[in-house]
Every structure is written in C-alpha cells, then in structure tokens.
C-alpha cells in the first residue's frame, strides 16, 4: 500500500500486526508503546520526523479505546488524570527546551540515547526487585494468615514501597486534595503536579508518552493502586498525545493514513490487553512489565552502536 504523505510503500498487514502488539501491551500496562512503534516504523523506511508525529496520532486512537475500556472497569480516576495533564504539558515543554539546548551544545543523539538507556534499565531493575519482594511478602502473609486474605480479589494491591507513598501523603503543602476513586484521603496537589511534570519532562526529552516512567511513579510515589494507575495514565496520555498530534500535524510530521491503519490492529489488541488486567494482581502486572523497558533499552543500544536513530 502506498502512503503518499510520507512517500513510503508499506504492507498494511505489517502495520496492523505492529498495532496489535502495541495495543495489547498498552491495554495491559497502560503504556503508549512508542519504544516499539517508533523503531517498527523506522525499520520500514518511514522518515524520522513522520515516525514521531504518526506514532503520537496512533497513540491518541489507541488510548481512547483502552481508556474507555479501563473506565468501564472502574480503573480511571478522572480528577487525578485531569490534574496530571497540567503538569505533563509543562514538563513536555521543559523537556523539549532541553533538547533544543543540547542541539547547540552537545551530541544530542548520544546524550538522549544514554539517558534513555539508563532510565529504562533503572526502571526495569527497580520494578523487578520491588515486584518480587511484594510477591514474596504476600506469599509469606498468605502462609501465616490465610483467613485475613479472604476476600482479596485480583485487584487487591500493595507494594513493598508503600511507606514512600505514605510519607508523601503526610506532606502538608496546600492545597490538599482528596482522590476518593484512588482511595487517597489527602495529598498535596504539588506532589501530583511534580510526578506529572517529571513524566512530561521525559516525554518531551525522550519522546513518546513516557508511560514507562509515569505509571510506576504513580504507584510508588502517589500510592495509586496499579490498576487505577494504568487506566489513569492512558486517560492522561490520550489528552497529551492529542496536543502533540495537533502540533506535529501542523508542522507536516503526521501521516494520518499510517496511523489509521496501525490503529485498526491496536483497537482489538487494546481490548484484549485491558480485559486481561482483570485476571492479574498488581504485583504480577508490575513483574510482567519488567522486560518492556529492557526491549526499549536494547533497541536504543543497537541504534547507538549502528548509527541508526532508534527513537
């Protein structure tokens, strides 16, 4: 199939399959999947500027499907998601400004590539360790007091780092807000904005939706249950990616036909992925998330070693 806007010839089956895999991962983990979509498009000859813009457009369509599904499952905290959008957009701008600065001062591809690999490896290692610790702790607790665990559904969630979130909840920096849908009695608005800003910063600096950093941050720092963090992250990505798509399309960086074809695969993948979260407990989802940043890191290292842009 010929895609006239970006002037490339790609099999639609390839795009649908790529979309399906990314949709599946997105629906299950709440990540945009740009660390797979970007290299997947680049590999078949799509120019880099179109890769970035088109991937964002495809993320919009996919996030709508997955966020709506998560909303039906009660996994989206609209209030939290809306507040986070503000911090994210500010963070995206700050990250983009740093890129502009590095363009003049340093080898931007090398600096960004190394930062990306370090961030991805840190997240993966930390989540593997934390998920394993939490699963072990649950097993020990289940062995000693089976009765107390009765009534725990697949959505029951805890983390070996609950104390960090509890400390953050105790910070009394006004305005303090309530997040009943996430089960949080009181939290400083600034903590939410800071987490959103950091996620947005990585999105602007490293590209994509940066769900790989926002989702774990929501769980460990804000104390949001994993299922709600996944759903709310998708809701938030839907809004910030719409903003990104619009600005990139004006600059001529979006081949919407490629995004539409990819999205047909992503729609069904996201449905299956979101449904699958009902069958897994929080720590298991976090453990299953571990290989994803490693795949992203491997692609970046390959790109840096061969001279190809992998982002």
């Amino acid at each position: 199939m010929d895609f006239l806007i970006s002037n490339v010839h790609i099999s639609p089956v390839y795009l649908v399959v790529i979309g399906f895999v990314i949709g599946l991962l997105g629906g299950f983990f709440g990540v945009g999947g740009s660390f797979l979509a970007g290299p997947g498009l680049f590999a078949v000859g799509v120019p880099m500027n179109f890769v970035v813009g088109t991937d964002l457009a495809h993320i919009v369509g996919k996030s709508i499907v997955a966020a709506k599904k998560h909303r039906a499952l009660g996994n989206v905290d609209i209030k939290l998601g809306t507040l986070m959008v503000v911090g994210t957009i500010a963070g995206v701008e700050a990250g983009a400004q740093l890129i502009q600065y590095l363009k003049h001062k340093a080898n931007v591809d090398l600096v960004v590539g190394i930062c990306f690999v370090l961030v991805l490896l840190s997240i993966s290692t930390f989540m593997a360790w934390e998920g394993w610790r939490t699963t072990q702790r649950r097993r020990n607790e289940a062995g000693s007091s089976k009765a107390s665990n009765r009534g725990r559904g697949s959505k029951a969630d805890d983390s070996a780092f609950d104390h960090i979130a509890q400390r953050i909840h105790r910070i009394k920096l006004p305005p303090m807000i309530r997040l009943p849908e996430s089960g949080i009695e009181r939290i400083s608005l600034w903590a939410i904005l800071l987490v959103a800003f950091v996620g947005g910063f990585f999105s602007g600096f490293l590209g994509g939706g940066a769900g790989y950093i926002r989702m774990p941050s929501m769980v460990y720092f804000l104390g949001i249950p994993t299922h709600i963090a996944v759903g709310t992250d998708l809701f938030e990505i839907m809004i910030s990616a719409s903003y990104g798509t619009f600005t990139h399309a004006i600059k001529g960086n979006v081949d919407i036909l490629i995004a539409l074809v990819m999205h047909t695969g992503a729609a069904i993948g996201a449905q299956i992925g979101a449904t699958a979260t009902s069958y897994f407990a929080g720590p298991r989802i976090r453990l299953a998330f571990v290989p994803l940043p490693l795949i992203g890191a491997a692609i970046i290292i390959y790109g840096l070693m061969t001279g190809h842009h992998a982002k």
Partner: protein
Amino acid sequence: MRIGSLRGNLTKRHQGMDGKGKDSVVSILIEVVVYAALVVAYFFLVLHFLGGWLMDLYQRDKRVYAIAALFLIICQGVLLETVTTALLRWIRSRVD
C-alpha cells in the same frame, strides 16, 4: 462426609473455571477472525479512498489537515471501540 463434599465442590469449581477460561479464549479467537474480515472491508471501502483527499489537504492547508487528522483518529477510536465491544458481547452470548 464433610471433607468429601468440600472436595467435590472444589473440583466442580475448578472445572467451571477451566470451562470459563476456554470459552474466553474461543470468544476472543472468533472476535479476532470476524474483526479481521471487517478491517479488510474497511481498508478497501474507506481508507483506500481517503488517501487522495488527505494528500490534497496536506499539500493545501496544514492547519485544516491537522484538525482533520485528529478528528479522523478520534472518530476511528470511538467507532472501533464500539465495534469490538459489541462484537465481543455478541460472540460471548453465542458461546455461552
């Protein structure tokens, strides 16, 4: 007696869960096949004809193209979500 009946209940529940899991896999597989057929029809009927019009819009006015691009991906997102949900519900009711 009591232990025997408990074991019987557990076995029944286990068999029920296995059956439910198989039904879910079967319904998802049927959904994927039916959905693939719908997507192929969609490619030929809609996307094939959209190509020329979008290219024209892209060359003429980027701002209008940006609005159209966002509108198209959001509409497709909502449309396909409705289709996949309805399809899954319909197939599950048939399988059950």
